[in-house]
């Protein structure tokens, strides 16, 4: 049984994890040295967080553009509130949909409440895939739009942990 990390060490560890594991033989040892803890302490804390569901997944985080998935499209639909859970669950299970979220409408500026992300290699194939999907689920009469990305300004992992004191990341 290892001594649990202090609150400050935990926060520092979360900040380090947000930028990824070092690519060295003993990555948790390397992280432990940076927060003045031991490798087993760090590993135990990371495993505990994982069990508690703090992480969506732990693995290789790839940049889909660099892999050739350049056609990144956001499908937005205006689904009646009473149907949005059912439509969301169905589209969420459809092949090719990588994210499916309900978000609030902001009337009058924004009428859409269901958001799906589709990543593909070619724009025309993504368009055809979306059209087929909407027809298959009898949704093509609902107001919807397909917003392709035209430029990526920034992409990195989320930074959730609050800054530690006034320390800068350098």
């Amino acid at each position: 049984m290892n001594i649990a990390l202090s609150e400050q060490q935990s926060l520092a560890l979360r900040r380090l994890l947000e930028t990824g594991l070092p690519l060295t033989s003993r990555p948790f040892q390397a992280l432990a040295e940076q927060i003045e803890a031991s490798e087993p302490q760090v590993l135990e804390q990371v495993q505990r967080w994982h069990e508690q569901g703090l992480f969506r997944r732990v693995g290789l985080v790839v940049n889909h553009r660099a892999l050739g998935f350049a056609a990144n499209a956001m499908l937005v639909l205006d689904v009646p509130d009473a149907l949005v859970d059912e439509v969301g669950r169905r589209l969420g299970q459809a092949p090719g949909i990588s994210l499916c979220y309900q978000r609030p409408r902001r009337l009058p500026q924004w009428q859409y409440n269901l958001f799906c992300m589709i990543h593909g290699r070619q724009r025309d194939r993504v368009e055809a895939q979306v059209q087929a999907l909407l027809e298959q689920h009898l949704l093509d009469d609902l107001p919807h739009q397909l917003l392709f990305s035209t430029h990526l300004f920034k992409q990195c992992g989320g930074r959730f942990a609050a800054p530690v004191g006034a320390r800068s990341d350098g």
Partner: protein
Amino acid sequence: MTPNSLARRLIDRFQHGLPLCAEPYQAMAQALGCCEAQVLDCLQHLQVAGTLSRVGPVFEHTRAGASTLAALAVPEDRLHQVAARVSQYPEVNHNYAREHRYNLWFVLTGPNRAHLDNILQELEHDTGLMPLDLPMLTAYRIDLGFALETTP
């Protein structure tokens, strides 16, 4: 195994999970029948090439803090300037131009909702543009892994 096929196998096998042990790269190497040095070398190459963003956790934002999807309708001639202003925040992790009147879309993450509200207010004040604030209400699918072979 060529470096490329090792890269493909590493990505396909370990996007969704990797062994949480003291020597994870050694464990990955064993699973794929190669040696640790090859795995580390391959991951370093992928990172330099920009294919690999990082190795590690993707935080569950509903537990890790607050997040929202925001959008701005930016006059075309100011798009790059406003995008640069938005990207300056460490709290912004995705920032895309999209084809729509709302043409700049970004994800904000932070320790709590008040933190995000401050940033949205700052952006509105600095740019004169009113952000759409679209926090997630329900997740029906959150998978972010990519099957290399089967995606169009």
